[in-house]
C-alpha cells in the first residue's frame, strides 16, 4: 500500500532561517505530489504540487519543492522563513489509478521572531 513519511514532526526555527521539510513516499509508479499547509484555525490550503515536467516546483509564499524520483522524495524548502509561516505542513500523494490523497503525519513548524 502507498504511504507517505514525514520524518520531522516538529520544527522550531527563528525568523530568516532556512527550512527544509522531508517527505518520502512508497509507491513505485506514476505519482502526483502535493504539499498542503494548515495555518492555526484555518483549513488545508495547497502550497504547491507536482504532476510532471520540471522536478523543481515553486509554490505560493516563496515555498518550493524538489521531486527526486530516485529517492522517492518531495522535500519542501524555503530559504528564509517568517513568523507567519507558523503552521502544520502536510505532504500528500495520489497515483494514476486513484485520486484519493494519501497524507503524511504532518510537520508542525514554529517560527519565532
Amino acid at each position, binding site marked *: 500500500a502507498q504511504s507517505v513519511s514525514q520524518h520531522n514532526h516538529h520544527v522550531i526555527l527563528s525568523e530568516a532561517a532556512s527550512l527544509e521539510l522531508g517527505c518520502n513516499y512508497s509507491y513505485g509508479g506514476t505519482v*502526483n505530489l502535493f504539499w*498542503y499547509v494548515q495555518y492555526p484555525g484555518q483549513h488545508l490550503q*495547497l502550497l504547491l504540487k507536482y504532476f510532471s515536467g520540471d522536478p523543481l516546483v515553486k509554490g505560493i509564499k516563496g515555498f518550493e519543492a524538489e521531486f527526486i524520483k530516485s529517492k522517492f522524495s518531495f522535500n519542501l524548502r524555503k530559504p528564509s522563513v517568517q513568523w507567519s509561516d507558523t503552521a502544520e505542513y502536510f505532504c500528500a500523494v495520489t497515483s494514476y489509478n486513484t485520486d*484519493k*490523497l*494519501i497524507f503524511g*503525519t*504532518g510537520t508542525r513548524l514554529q517560527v519565532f521572531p
Partner: protein
Amino acid sequence: EPEVTQTPSHQVTQMGQEVILRCVPISNHLYFYWYRQILGQKVEFLVSFYNNEISEKSEIFDDQFSVERPDGSNFTLKIRSTKLEDSAMYFCASRQRGGDTDTQYFGPGTRLTVL
C-alpha cells in the same frame, strides 16, 4: 475566490446518535471527498463521490457511514450511530473536472465530538 464551506464548525453528540455533516463544494466542481483527522493522527481518506455515486471508499467507511448529494449543491456525510472513536475533524474536499484536474480544495472542517 470560491471556497468549500462546511457546517457546522463543531458538533457535539451522544454516542449512538446520528449526525449529518454538511459541505457545499465549489460550484463547478464535480468530484467530492470526505477525509477525517483524529486528534494527533494523519488525515485519512474516507470516500470519494462522482456522478452521484461512490467511486472509492476506505475500510473506515463502513455501513455506519453514508454520503449524499441531495440537491445539487450540498454534499453530506451521515454517521448513523456514532461511536466514541468517530470523534475527529472531518474535512470535505472538491475537485474540478478538467484543467486543474488533480487539485483537491478543502473546506475548514467540522469538529465532531462524541460523548
